[in-house]
């Protein structure tokens, strides 16, 4: 709730900053006080519109959140008959903690990942990829489901959706006002260091463009522009920081919650190692990736890494949950052919094997052969691990 209030506040701050810029573009000769009061009047005048826009954003997200995500990822509900193994695992976990069972969905994809969605009890859902179903054994699947259930139980999904909305709104308005600003071709005393963005013609702004040839300004304009820029950057930075801080610690908490549910830290560790580097969901937006068990996008692609690295999560599980350390797994190479060069993930580290191909030979998720299912009681199974493997099945 507090975050939602913060969202409205951020929107007003952005509108204020934008109004400052527009006032400067209109009349380059004013004083600081003039600009501030004029911008404030603008904000108050447009208050109904900005409030309505922010509210509309929130309402759309609230009701269509699940539909949008399903459309993007292709998830479909499954019943107990269709997936008894998965359904029973989830149901038993819910019984053991006395929480109502969320909807279960399957997403056809060779990637190994799972995510939780839903903003209230009616909407809660856990989606699992078919690749994950094929690659993980029962205990590991249970650990992943426990992780997602803990996200739901801790209210992480609401937090992340709000944080993403904030980042999106701020980014949207910030970019919009930048474009308006640079399109006015402001070449006053302080403007020369701003890059000229080769943007499309900006959407119509309320001020007339006849005064676009601003005179070389008095000191007030520069100061005010600087204030506006700083405000926008601060708002944006804050939204990113909020997103980051929430994600990392909550992922660790979800790992801990999973162990609390299943009492089996080794299963979570081996599940994480199997998922490592194979979690890329094609076509999923950043928002969806943040809700996943592992988010392989990091560095500049997604601006900042929102998940702690698998290594640090394994270390935490070893240190605090009594798990046994397991190094990165070297899985067999996928069949030759498409090597999954997705445009979404240019940063994939070189040492990880490429993703299994989509729609490759056979076209069946379990028929790909690149990630054979690990039997419960074969510690020297196809993974090529040393004999002291994880106690995944114990």
């Amino acid at each position: 709730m507090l975050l939602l209030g913060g969202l409205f506040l951020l929107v007003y701050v952005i509108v204020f900053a934008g109004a400052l810029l527009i006032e400067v573009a209109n009349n380059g000769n004013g004083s600081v006080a003039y600009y501030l009061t004029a911008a404030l009047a603008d904000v108050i005048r447009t208050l109904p519109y900005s409030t309505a826009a922010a509210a509309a954003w929130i309402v759309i997200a609230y009701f269509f959140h699940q539909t949008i995500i399903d459309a993007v990822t292709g998830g479909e509900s499954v019943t107990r008959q269709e997936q008894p193994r998965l359904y029973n695992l989830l149901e038993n976990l819910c019984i053991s903690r006395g929480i109502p069972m969320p909807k279960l969905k399957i997403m056809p994809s060779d990637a190994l990942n799972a995510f939780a969605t839903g903003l209230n009890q009616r909407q809660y859902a856990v989606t699992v990829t078919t690749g994950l179903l094929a690659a993980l054994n029962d205990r590991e699947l249970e650990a992943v489901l426990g992780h997602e259930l803990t996200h739901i139980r801790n209210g992480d999904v609401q937090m992340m959706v709000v944080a993403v909305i904030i980042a999106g709104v701020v980014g949207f308005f910030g970019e919009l006002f930048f474009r308006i600003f640079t399109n006015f071709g402001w070449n006053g005393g302080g403007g020369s260091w701003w890059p000229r963005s080769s943007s499309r013609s900006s959407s119509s702004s309320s001020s007339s463009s006849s005064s676009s040839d601003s005179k070389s300004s008095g000191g007030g304009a520069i100061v005010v522009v600087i204030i506006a820029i700083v405000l926008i950057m601060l708002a944006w930075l804050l939204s990113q920081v909020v997103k980051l801080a929430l994600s990392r610690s909550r992922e660790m908490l979800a790992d801990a919650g999973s162990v609390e549910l299943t009492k089996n830290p080794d299963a979570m560790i081996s599940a994480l190692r199997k998922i490592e580097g194979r979690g890329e969901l094609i076509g999923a937006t950043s928002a969806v990736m943040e809700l996943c068990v592992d988010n392989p996008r990091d560095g500049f692609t997604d601006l900042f890494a929102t998940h702690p690295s698998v290594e640090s999560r394994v270390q935490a599980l070893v240190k605090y949950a009594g798990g046994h350390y397991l190094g990165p797994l070297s899985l067999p190479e996928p069949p030759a052919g498409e090597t999954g060069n997705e445009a979404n993930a240019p940063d994939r580290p070189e040492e990880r094997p490429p993703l299994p191909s989509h729609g490759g030979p056979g076209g069946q998720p379990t028929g790909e052969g690149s990630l054979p299912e690990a039997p419960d009681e074969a510690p020297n199974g196809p993974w090529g691990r040393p004999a002291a493997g994880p106690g995944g099945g114990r």
Partner: protein
Amino acid sequence: MSSGWIVLAVIVVLVIFAFSAYNRLVALSQRVNQAFADIDVQLKQRHDLIPNLVETVKGYAAHERGTLDEVVKARNAAISAQSPGQVAAAENQLSGALGRLIALSEAYPDLKANANFQQLANELSDLENKIAASRRFFNNAVQEYNTGIQQMPAALFAGMFGFTRKEFFDLGSSRTEVEAAPAVKF
């Protein structure tokens, strides 16, 4: 500021504390009761499955009277058990008997291949998991309740309101019988 007001304020705060502590303990206690009742839901489902299972096995292994009778007897004992201790003991006996019955299928390949039998065996196995899960939930609820009545400031009021420690669901004295390996007779 007269000391009378201060005393009054302190009393009001204490009363508010007591109210909220009481309400919280009531909620936790009810959760424990509900958790115990939920175990019964799974147990009853298991009772309902058994007649069908016994009939299916009789169709292929009619002369295994010993094992079959054991299961029927254990089921009746479990249904008629009253106190929680009796219920726990009877249900554990039933689990053991069912395990031996399912193991019979190893000696009778026709029985093992029967689709009905396989489905019943799978459902029973899933029910065992569910019973374990509901017991875990019960233990969680008991733990939260016990912690609640021992933490301050609720600890000051708990005794006066009649909230006492509850027991976990463990095997207790019947543990040795349950843990004895079933004797396999052919």
